[in-house]
């Protein structure tokens, strides 16, 4: 069990609800992953659009914690407005704060993210800020009251894994009590293992499962990867050594080896 934003949870996987081949595969993948937090967005609805209603019914019935995002925002102002409306619609003060600063690599805008985080924290939100792996930006976010940080592994949807584990490590070291979640860029289960082994509290991912050939099976893979990585971290990983060291005891080696 672990605790985030006042909730006790079993799963350390936060899962996205986008890009699945079908609503059924989305539902099955989310269930199989064991995730207890799901991210959603708010978008314009057209008259007669039944897909939106059906999507929401599926999500509601799974009885998960809802984490609305502010995706599509390019300024603090837009993100704050989206968060405030999402709070009313979804009945939660949780928000995944996402302010994009670059259209090419979808890199978060650190200045606008910090500005929005400050306003939202003061307004009573539990902010889950999507940020880069920059230690100074992380510090600024904590300074304005964030209890959670979500640095990227690599750009959204790229599947490149952890581009800069050293930066992620530095954030973990500086903020031992802040909940840290690697968000974005995870491509394969081993990336999630690596993130968890660094001592991160959780992983947020979407494309890695939704775009797999078999999303449901990949969801299961990530479920175990995150558990394995966490266990590895908790168990304490051995120190790397420069030279080989026999694992089988040398004492008691049978006599005939002595004649080789």
């Amino acid at each position, binding site marked *: 069990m672990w605790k985030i934003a006042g909730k006790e949870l079993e799963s350390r996987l936060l899962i996205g609800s*986008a890009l699945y081949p079908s609503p059924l595969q989305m539902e099955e993948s989310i269930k199989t992953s064991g995730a207890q937090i799901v991210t959603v967005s708010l978008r314009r*609805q057209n008259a007669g659009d039944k897909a939106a*209603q059906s999507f929401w019914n599926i999500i509601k019935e799974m009885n998960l914690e809802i984490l609305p*995002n502010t995706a599509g925002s390019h300024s603090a102002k837009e993100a704050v407005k989206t968060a405030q409306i999402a709070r009313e619609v979804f009945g939660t003060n949780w928000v995944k704060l996402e302010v994009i600063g670059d259209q090419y690599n979808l890199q978060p805008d650190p200045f606008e993210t910090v500005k929005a985080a400050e306003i939202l924290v003061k307004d009573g939100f539990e902010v889950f800020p999507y940020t880069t792996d920059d230690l100074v930006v992380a510090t600024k976010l904590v300074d304005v009251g964030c209890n959670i940080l979500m640095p990227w592994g690599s750009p959204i949807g790229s599947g490149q894994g952890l581009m800069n584990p050293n930066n992620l490590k530095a954030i973990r070291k500086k903020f031992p009590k802040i909940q840290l979640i690697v968000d974005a860029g995870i491509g394969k289960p081993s990336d999630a293992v690596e993130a968890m082994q660094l001592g991160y509290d959780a992983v947020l991912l979407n494309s890695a499962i939704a775009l797999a050939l078999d999303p449901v099976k990949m969801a299961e893979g990530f479920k175990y990867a995150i558990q394995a990585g966490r266990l590895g971290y908790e168990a304490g990983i051995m120190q790397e050594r420069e030279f080989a060291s026999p694992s089988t005891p040398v004492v008691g080696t049978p006599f005939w080896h002595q004649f080789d």
Partner: protein
Amino acid sequence: MVEKIEIVVNGEKKVILNKSNIKEMIKTLGYEDNSFAVVLNGTFVDLKKYDETKIAKGDTIEILAPMAGG
């Protein structure tokens, strides 16, 4: 004859009857009575206030729904 007014809904110009409330506007625009959010001139309108909230000429309305997101 009831006067008609022009408003902007989800970025598109629409014409509705003057003095419509949100509930009537939703019906005129062809939305079914299901879960969505209405934002009138940038302010979220609670479902309970759909009857009493009147739409005026030139109002900007966003009709939003929960969608997939990462």
